[in-house]
């Protein structure tokens, strides 16, 4: 049921289409995504503290790319805002979007855990 699910967390149809319909591989990529996300968000927190807008822009860009690759729509949009905040040196926007990004990531984790329970 979850595999067909398309909502604002993840667009399964387009993510699967992009990687040739391999569901196991999508799971592997989602695993890598979570690892990479944690690393990026740690760096992002540090960049916010240091008000390093170049780093904020780069990290936002990176997160945007990874999220877009897996059709994680809300995460991609928040990452895009972080990237823009970096480009425009807008600290308030960067902080706001990072908080939203973390919330979205939490939603994704819950969604994936629920999916795993349903599959098990």
């Amino acid at each position, binding site marked *: 049921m979850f595999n067909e699910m398309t909502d604002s967390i993840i667009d399964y149809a387009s993510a699967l289409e992009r990687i040739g319909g391999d569901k196991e591989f999508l799971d592997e990529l989602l695993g890598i995504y979570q690892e990479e996300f944690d690393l990026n968000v740690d760096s992002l927190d540090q960049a916010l503290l240091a008000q390093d807008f170049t780093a904020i822009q*780069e990290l936002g860009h*990176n997160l945007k790319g990874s999220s877009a690759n897996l059709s994680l729509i809300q995460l991609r949009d928040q990452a895009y805002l972080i990237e823009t905040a970096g480009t425009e040196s807008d600290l308030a926007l960067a902080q706001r979007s990072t908080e939203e990004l973390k919330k979205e990531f939490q939603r994704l984790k819950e969604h994936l855990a629920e999916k795993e329970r349903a599959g098990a």
Partner: protein
Amino acid sequence: MKVLIAEDSMISCRALESNIQTWGYEVITTRNGQEAWDALNAKERTLTNGNKIRIALLDWEMPKINGIELCQRIRSRRKVQPQDYIYIILMTGRDNQEDILQGLEAGADDYMTKPFDYTELKIRLQNGERVIEQEKIQDQIQATDSLTRLWNRNKILEFLDEEIDRSSRQNQPTSVLLMDIDGLARVNESDGFAAGDHILKEVSARIHDSMRRYDKLGRLGDDEFLGVFPNCREEHIQHIAERLRRAVVQDAIQMESGTREVSLSLGGASTSIFVSCTGPQLLSTAQEAVAKAKAQGGNTTVLLQPQRKQ
């Protein structure tokens, strides 16, 4: 065919790697521009033909060296020294006209905007492969001597340099034989250049057919040929030289008017674990040796040892 991926996002990198491997390519993944540049310059990867990176998928925005700069480096490297053409696809989240033009101007062959469709990527890689195949044919034509169909001067000297480089790292010997057809100038003078060309073709074929598959032969110019013998010691090169000399001398060459006896002077030199030297040093020793063989009346081999490098 080997494909290099330079992509800082772990997720994109893994997705690309998996897909591209499924399509039958060998993949090298790197996570930033510097790593990619190092991979492109790694000696081990350029050792044998067909084993080199021929397609590069470069992310536009990467730490250290970005995709555009990497693209420019790859293209300008080829101007400085002969290099195989690398087909470059830039991957970018940008899709505005100006950025794309900047990418193409930097030397990219193609670009894709992210997130991209893998079916489209597959087709774009196939396009790249077609271009590389054409380049290979072009390179082959450029590296071939039109009369003898052997490698030309540039190509055999390039091979010699690569071989010396490789063998010295692996502590293996390399030998060369410089071969000069005796009295060809006289044939050209008395019977015309067509007769001389006929002899050149016949002699080169005889030498070539008597060599091992992994030994290489090229025409250095006029009546001079250079053979490069990887992993071949001084003791062995004497036997090889004798075999080649006999292959040329044993049967007279059939000419339009009758037959003609032809002989070969050979000069040899080898590197060893005791004597390491550069390609030009080895060649100049072989030139000295062939001059001595000529001075002894031709139809013989002289071996000399290169001077120990200071």
